[in-house]
């Protein structure tokens, strides 16, 4: 099936086109079949291609499928060429697999919404763009996908466009991403200027082999510049400090969108890009440190904000930002495969958490405030149990998926000599367990805090919604076993990814005994259990203790609840000055004054001149004749006196 790689993005594109152009006249069942069929077929082709890839010898696992030359101008050539190697295969499977599951879920979740066809058309278009992003074999094509997913994200955040907050959130996401994209584009320019190529293969081979042309010391400058610019793009897309502010607001979109785009796939594009460019990043020690520091700061900061948020989706949004920070920490310490591993397991359990939250919101008739939930366990048992699995997985409890990937990251940080980072990540792991179980306890346990009317309405979601929950729940349980750490057997995930990371520079890792690894694994489980215990104490045993604690530390609580006032800071420092400048100078002076003035002035001048000339055109034939006669006489006189014709 590797010859038919182009089919993988083609199916969603066709689905988007059919639903987008004709969806208005199609019944909902037809729209659902087209959209889910497109993503399902795409997933099947991806699976078959993946198995074909497995048949190849490990060092040959890189299939390039040329489609057509897109731009050819001088020595600048951009092709549409798809790349299937272990890294992109994992991404394709995650994107199409989780995408397909979320498409199925959306049938149930969106059944009563207006613009049903619009939603599925955008969702398919997103899958197409995301697949272009992960399958691209050169930077330019990757950028096409990169922008495509940004566009779809904007469209889907603003899906409820009649709500002002949704429109604003869409704009915020779009603009913040543009800021990051500037860095990405500049990085691509610099790559082309330096290597005269856009192809991943060409560029990375030049870096890896051209030791003479690019000795580590001499090339560090240019490689650092390139990787820093690329990382700016990654901070925008993957919601890292300082560009993370758009992701929590993006929760204005429908919940399946939050699950697919803003948790499982699109926001991980930055991580994927960093890992894909590992040959560049691994040779720029400065950038790696920046990546690591930004990652750990984001992880810690977002986790603390997540502790006190009341909106169920916002808790999950900050959790996503925090976990993305984790992935960047892994990339920053050079453990690229751990980063992708966590990306994959995170896609399973975070998509599950969001879909579960969607099921809760659905059951509650649109209520998102955790403080008005409670006692949902007996009403929505499937949602409760699947979300509990996901919460255990993200907390890092053995043997669920999150344990292996998170432990791998923590262990990489420690074993590569970043003890401070390890401590911060360790604390974050405890905070993660706390806020996840705070969410579970507040939503599902204790007494119901909602109105009696809502209580009558509460019900378990239909099978089309609980089915995906169960599938993702199973994946959250077993997903980690592909990457068993060395002390439990061979790390197959790591070895599978190895060919894709072969060109990266691998630092010498210190040798530690397996028993040390075991101790650290036990520690990370312990901190998760402590976090869960605190959540249990505060929200189950003594439900009023949390409020008392918030009262006692009210200033800290307010600081966290208001998200460190970062939005207010950005508003005051950047947004409002820009708005004021645009209003007073650009709009009222430059646009209304200069440009409109020039256009209107030209019109006025022509009108004035015409009002004089129109007197000639008075409609009287006799006056026209008189003018002709005068003209003839004038010409005759001219010739007689000046040209000497007599």
């Amino acid at each position, binding site marked *: 099936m590797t010859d038919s790689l182009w089919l993988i993005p083609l199916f969603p594109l066709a689905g988007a086109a059919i639903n987008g152009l004709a969806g208005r006249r199609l019944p909902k069942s037809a729209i659902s079949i087209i959209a889910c069929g497109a993503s399902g077929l795409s997933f099947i082709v991806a699976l078959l291609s993946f198995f074909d890839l497995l048949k190849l010898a490990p060092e040959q696992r890189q299939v390039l499928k040329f489609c057509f030359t897109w731009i050819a101008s001088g020595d600048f050539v951009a092709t549409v060429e798809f790349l299937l190697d272990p890294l992109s295969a994992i991404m394709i499977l995650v994107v199409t697999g989780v995408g397909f599951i979320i498409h199925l879920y959306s049938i149930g979740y969106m059944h009563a919404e207006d613009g049903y066809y619009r939603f599925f058309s955008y969702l398919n278009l997103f899958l197409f763009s995301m697949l272009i992003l992960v399958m691209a074999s050169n930077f330019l094509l990757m950028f096409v996908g990169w922008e495509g997913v940004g566009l779809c994200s904007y469209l889907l955040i603003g899906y409820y466009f009649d709500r002002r907050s949704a429109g604003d959130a869409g704009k915020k996401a779009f603009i913040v991403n543009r800021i990051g994209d500037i860095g990405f584009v500049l990085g691509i320019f610099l790559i082309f200027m330096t290597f005269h190529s856009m192809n991943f293969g060409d560029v990375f081979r030049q870096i890896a082999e051209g030791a003479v042309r690019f000795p580590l010391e001499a090339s560090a400058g240019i490689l650092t510049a390139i990787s820093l610019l690329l990382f700016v793009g990654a901070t925008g897309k993957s919601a890292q400090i300082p560009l993370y502010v758009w992701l929590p607001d993006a929760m204005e979109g429908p919940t399946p969108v939050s699950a697919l785009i803003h948790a499982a796939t699109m926001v991980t594009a930055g991580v994927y890009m960093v890992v894909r460019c590992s040959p560049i990043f691994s040779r720029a020690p400065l950038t790696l440190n920046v990546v690591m520091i930004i990652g750990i700061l984001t992880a810690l900061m977002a986790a603390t904000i997540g502790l006190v948020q009341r909106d169920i989706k916002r808790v999950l949004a900050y959790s996503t930002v925090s976990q993305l920070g984790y992935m960047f920490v892994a990339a920053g310490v050079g453990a690229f495969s751990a980063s992708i591993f966590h990306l994959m397991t995170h896609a399973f359990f975070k998509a599950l958490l969001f879909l579960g939250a969607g099921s809760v919101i659905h059951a509650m008739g649109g209520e998102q405030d955790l403080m008005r939930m409670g006692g949902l366990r007996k009403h929505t048992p499937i949602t409760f149990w699947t979300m509990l699995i996901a919460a255990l997985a993200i907390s890092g409890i053995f043997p669920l998926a999150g344990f292996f990937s998170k432990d791998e990251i923590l262990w990489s940080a420690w074993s590569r000599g970043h003890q401070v980072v390890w401590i911060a990540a360790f604390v974050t792991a405890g905070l993660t367990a706390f806020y996840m179980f705070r969410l579970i306890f507040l939503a599902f346990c204790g007494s119901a805090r909602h109105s009696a009317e809502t209580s009558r309405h509460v019900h378990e979601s239909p099978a089309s919604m609980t089915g995906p929950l169960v599938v993702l729940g199973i994946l959250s349980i077993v997903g980690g076993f592909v990457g068993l750490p060395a002390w439990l057997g061979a790390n197959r995930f790591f070895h599978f990814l190895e060919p894709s990371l072969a060109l990266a520079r691998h630092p010498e890792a210190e040798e530690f005994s397996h028993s040390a690894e075991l101790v650290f694994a036990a520690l990370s489980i312990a901190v998760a259990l402590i976090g869960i215990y605190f959540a249990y104490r505060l929200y189950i045993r003594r439900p009023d203790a949390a409020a008392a604690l918030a009262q006692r530390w009210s200033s800290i609580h307010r600081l966290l609840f208001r998200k460190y006032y970062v939005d207010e800071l950005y508003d005051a420092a950047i947004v409002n000055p820009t708005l004021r400048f645009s209003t007073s100078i650009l709009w009222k002076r430059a646009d209304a004054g200069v440009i409109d003035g020039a256009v209107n002035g030209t019109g006025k001048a022509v009108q004035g001149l015409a009002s004089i000339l129109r*007197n*000639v055109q*008075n*409609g*009287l*034939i*006799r006056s026209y004749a008189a003018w002709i*006669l005068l003209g003839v006489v004038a010409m005759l006189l001219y010739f007689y006196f000046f040209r000497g014709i007599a």
Partner: protein
Amino acid sequence: MELSHYLILSMLLFLVGAVGFIIKKNIISVFLCLELMLNAVNLSFVAFARHLDQVHGQIFVFLVMVVAAAEAAVGLAITIVLFRNRNTLNIDDADSMKG
């Protein structure tokens, strides 16, 4: 009879036609003045042809006469249509192209 006599007569006829064209309001009179100017020119053509002993001028006269006949046909048709639509022969009333 010298050439100049013919030319002076031609000029006088042309002036009568031109002035009449400008000052007359009745569309029929305007047409008559137009014909008068054409024929004044014809007269000078014939005079020159005779004077220079060349046939060119006489050929031009035929051309002018043909054009004048065509123009008269079209012009009278316009006059009739104008009268039917506007019920007037006053040329100043046909000023709907005023700027």
